């Protein structure tokens, strides 16, 4: 396991460095440069030059990269000149709300997908399987904002049960729970469409394994074989699937937050995109990427801890 751990950590460090390089590169690909972005097109050449010197933009690029990386590692991601706040403060405020939204959505999606995928696998190529496959394909084929709109139409306009925006988030646990239902539902449905396909095929693969026949032959009832043997083995790929799905979930949260006005990183990013607030845009991209890398690392470590073939391999 130590060898695996070392290799996996090494990969993570390389990927994180490359992410930082890409974000730094994008920072310098800004049209007109970072200074023009702050001062606007009408600034005098003198003012532009002055700010460029102040921000260290006249130094060679590798030096700038190291300085920027040093700042980023210490949590200094620049300053939002539109919101007049350090980017790190904004991220610290918005990021936990994302953990809440995506965490709940992923947990619920797993809780639904596992039994659903297993049911489809046990009844494969029968009516139930086809019916659910059809529904899931339809969900999978919808842009996530359309999914959210359908949720709004059904649960807000037709049956006025839930608020259609999450703007009131942060006014006590009761309101928070209420405004979160639709965003979580939207994000969750997209994930269910994605996860349950894998659970289905993983369970089908396991059903064909020799150990199932052996367990049946020694007299175990089907229910016991399915729960104790098949489902346990099929759950292993789900752990790594969740790790792989992080970029999808985070991307989905961007749409969901823009649609429901949920004040998370997605909404922060979207607002920054509308106002061309580049330090915020790049800070958000850096943080969500790091979160995804760390998340997949944790998923892989969990997988390794659960799977004896890797643990002792």
């Amino acid at each position, binding site marked *: 396991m130590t060898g695996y751990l070392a290799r996996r950590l090494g990969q993570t460090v390389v990927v994180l460095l*490359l992410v930082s390089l890409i974000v730094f590169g994008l920072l310098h690909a800004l049209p007109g440069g970072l200074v023009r972005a702050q001062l606007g097109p009408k600034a005098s050449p003198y003012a532009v030059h002055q700010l460029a010197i102040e921000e260290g933009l006249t130094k060679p690029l590798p030096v700038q990269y190291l300085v920027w990386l040093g700042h980023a590692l210490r949590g200094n991601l620049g300053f939002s000149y539109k919101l007049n706040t350090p980017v790190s403060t904004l991220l610290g405020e918005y990021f936990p709300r994302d953990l809440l939204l995506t965490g709940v959505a992923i947990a619920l999606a797993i809780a639904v997908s596992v039994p659903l995928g297993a049911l489809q696998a046990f009844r494969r190529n029968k009516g139930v399987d086809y019916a659910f496959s059809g529904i899931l394909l339809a969900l999978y084929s919808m842009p996530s904002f359309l999914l959210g709109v359908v949720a709004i139409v059904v649960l807000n306009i037709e049956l006025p049960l839930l608020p259609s925006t999450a703007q009131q988030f942060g006014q006590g646990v009761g309101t928070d729970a209420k405004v979160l239902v639709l965003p979580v539902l939207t994000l969750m449905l997209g994930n269910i469409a994605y996860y349950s396909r894998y659970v289905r095929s993983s369970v089908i693969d396991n059903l064909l394994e020799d150990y199932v026949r052996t367990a049946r032959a020694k007299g175990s009832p089907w229910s016991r074989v399915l729960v104790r043997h098949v489902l346990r083995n099929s759950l292993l790929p789900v752990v790594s699937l969740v790790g792989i799905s992080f970029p999808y979930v985070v991307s989905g949260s961007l749409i969901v937050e823009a649609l429901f006005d949920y004040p998370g990183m997605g909404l922060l*990013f979207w607002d920054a995109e509308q106002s061309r607030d580049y330090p915020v845009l*790049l800070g958000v991209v850096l943080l969500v990427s790091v979160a995804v890398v760390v998340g997949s690392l944790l998923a892989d470590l969990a997988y390794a801890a659960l799977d004896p073939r890797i643990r002792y391999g």
Partner: protein
Amino acid sequence: MSVGPVGSALATMTGPHAPPFDAVPVEMPERARPVWRDNLATFAANRFALAGFVVLVAIALFCFVGPHLYSTNQSATNLINENLPPSAQFPLGTSPEGFDILGRLMLGGQSTLEVGFAVALVATLFGTLWGAIAGYAGGIVDALLMRVVDTMLSIPFLFFVVLLGTLLQPTLPLIVVAIASVSWLSTARIVRGETLSLRTRDYVVAARGFGNGHLRLVLRHVVPNALGVVVVNATLKVADAILLFASISFLGLGVPPPATNWGRMLTTGINNLFDGYWWQLWPAAVAIVATVVAINAVGDGLHDVVEKRLAGGRS
């Protein structure tokens, strides 16, 4: 069963116009059928895929031939006709700018389909090349190229596309580039995996023994044999690109009006959702979902074809 170029070569040799030695009774009746007919039969056996293909052709005809049969003004706004419900004059009602929605659906479908297919083409070509080089070269080149893929995959793609769209001027070709820049990654991974197994096959080793260069080995011997898997992947890419294009249109990136696409039309419909203008939302929604489902169905059929060919190759 026949596999790839080798199989098709054998098929022609034993076909009806084969050289005289065909007169010797050889029991390979199914080889006499050209590969594409086997493939077509496999594809057509999947009813769902066949239906998907028909729907897809119908949608393409609707978008590209439709405007010639049903001509509407889609460039000049007409505020007298704004937000009208469906009627005899406007079968699907009008938009907030007074555009006929049925005609707009055709126009929006054109750019949506164009972006979808262009992304799939660009991403597949680039990803195939990248993956084939990584898998074929191995060692440090492979590690480096694949770490780049890992890195790009860990940046949530929608954030990356929106950021690129903000930095670049959003014209249609640049939107294609932005979406393709996240779409090629899965192709690269798949092709690398295929190449790793293909490059040690006897025929590749033999071709290398004949003195073929690396480039020729990759392009003539490795890539064509990974093609089946790549084609299935490319089909699904069209669907993903259409969804991604809709999402970035929803986030406000895209070509300025009067140009439109289904995602932009959906967004208009969402903005007017609480006014009860249902005809501005649902036609575009149905168009997008029907197209994506149809493409997934076609991908499913192609998957069957590839699966069957691979299974045949092993037996």
